């Protein structure tokens, strides 16, 4: 698999009925890298992601995959290159993990074609990659939230696309499972060169895991670039209307945002002393 596919939005305007969500947006997704899209609630993050995988037709402008408009590409052809994990996919009652992951093979199958050896291998590889192999014969509705999310990612992996879009893959997960999912996505990116675009709520995790950070505000890109360039106190104020302090994350060396509300913001004297003394 290669990481040479280019995905870009060109003067993109998106709307639901009368309500315009994204207006005249240009975006270039760096191939083979991890891009995180952040922004306030209802700023159009998910809408942008849906449009990039052609779930939503643009009002004007285009989404280009390798220079071709995605809304013009044959559905299955697109689905062999570009995968999307929506925010709340639905698991049919009682479906087993292996069966659900197998649904990811849809774009590789014909109407009455038989299940092939490649299909089995792709499902197995997806299970192995997400460490869900021991769950293969379990029912999806019996699993914990973290396990279930890994299974959905496995389904998207079985689709074997070079580009993978994920809409808030860490929502509803506790912190350990959030890290687990983001580590898994990083592994995918590093070992297979899969280009990843994900919408994330947590700014600090986004800054830590993304190579490229996109901050959306009011249907426009406020800033895009490396986490160091994008995650600044000014940016947080402009995008979220929140005062903050951005420091260097001692664990990762990436920027770390500390929100400043109206309470609990007076620094403890001993902490101040130890930082100024060092």
């Amino acid at each position, binding site marked *: 698999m290669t990481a040479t596919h280019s995905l870009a939005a060109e003067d993109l305007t998106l709307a639901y009925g009368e309500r315009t969500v994204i207006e005249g947006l240009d975006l270039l997704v760096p191939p083979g890298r991890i891009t995180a899209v952040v922004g306030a609630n209802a700023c159009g993050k998910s809408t942008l992601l849906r449009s990039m995988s*052609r*779930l939503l037709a643009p009002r004007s402008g285009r989404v280009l995959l390798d220079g071709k408009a995605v809304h013009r590409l044959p559905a299955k052809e697109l689905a062999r290159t570009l995968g999307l994990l929506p925010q709340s996919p639905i698991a049919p009652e009682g479906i087993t993990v292996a069966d659900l992951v197998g649904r990811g093979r849809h774009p590789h199958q014909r*109407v009455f074609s038989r*299940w092939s050896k490649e299909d089995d291998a792709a499902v197995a590889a997806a299970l192995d990659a997400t460490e869900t192999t021991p769950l293969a014969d379990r029912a999806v509705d019996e699993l914990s939230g973290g396990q279930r999310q890994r299974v959905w990612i496995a389904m998207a992996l079985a689709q074997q696309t070079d580009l993978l879009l994920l809409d808030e893959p860490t929502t509803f997960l506790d912190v350990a499972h959030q890290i687990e999912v983001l580590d898994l996505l990083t592994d995918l990116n590093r070992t297979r060169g899969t280009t990843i675009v994900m919408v994330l709520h947590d700014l600090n995790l986004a800054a830590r895991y993304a190579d490229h950070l996109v901050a959306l505000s009011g249907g426009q890109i406020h800033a895009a670039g490396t986490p160091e360039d994008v995650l600044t106190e000014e940016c947080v104020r402009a995008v979220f209307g929140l005062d903050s302090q951005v420091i260097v994350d001692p664990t990762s060396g990436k920027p770390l945002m500390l929100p400043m509300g109206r309470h609990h913001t007076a620094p403890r004297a001993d902490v101040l002393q130890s930082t100024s003394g060092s």
Partner: protein
Amino acid sequence: MTAVVTPAPSTVDTVARGRVRRAARRRLVITLLALAVLVAFAVTLMVGRTFYPPGDVLRVVLGSDVPGASFTVGTLRLPRAVLAVVAGLSFGLAGVTFQTMLRNPLASPDVIGITSGASAAAAFAIVILGWSGTAVSVTAIVAALGVALLIYMLAFKDGVAGTRLILIGIGVAAMGKSITSYVLSKAGAWDFAEALRWLTGSLNGSTWEATVPALVALLVFGPVLLGQTRNLSALQLGDDTASALGVRVERTRVIAIVAAVALLAFATAACGPIAFVSFLAGPIAARLVGPNGSLLVPAALVGALLVLVADLCGQYAFGTRYPVGVITGVLGAPYLIYLIVRSNRTGGSL
């Protein structure tokens, strides 16, 4: 966690074995259901005021002339049995298509008013307009599509069949039933059984003229629906996921609705809206098959079995002969109540 490009052979083995096991379970259920349908079909041909042994029945079906049996089996019982199977398959297939597509067992066409729309139109065409044959089928189809379109416009929000769709559908169903009742009250000399045909469905007085259009519709639209099996399976994961998997969601939905409505309308024009068969077939098939693949074929067979067995019960189990729809109605109503009670708690799925 590491990303693996080449899977472990043992994992491939697990995946393949699980898939084969699921397919085997589904095949077993389908085979047993098909056998049960065959047996019920044979019993329908053999049993009646006069009993004919299998040998006689077989000879009649194969075209030989058997004194007595040729008329009773060939002219009276055979069209009835064939119509029972055709209508059952059609109702089952159409019902499970709607339930799968809308991800809600309550969203079957007889609960949301599509069947009663077809029935009202058929009764209107026959009683008021004095039409028969194909004209009645066409009227039923147009009305059923109209009702489907009406419900679609009133209730669809991003393809989700919420409470809204069910409530609107139940309202539409009640309207259809009241139109049918009104039409029947205008039909002076109709006897009770004939009237019941259009209210709950009946196989009494089945003829080849009524059966053949429904059979042709099944042969045309059945394969169309079966061709959508994989797309419908993907739709179960939600519209967004299905679309991301390369399914053209709107197109799949339109094909499935038109084919399912056509099946329903032709079957309804032949024998009336046999109560609750499309509603019951899918969930019963789901219980039998388990989460082991598409329910289209199993549900169709369950539908046929339901109609055949309910018709046998209606004819011979009680002192009086009841139309088949009365029996299926008695079976279906408690299940409907159960589902509504349950869906309040869990949201319910097929």
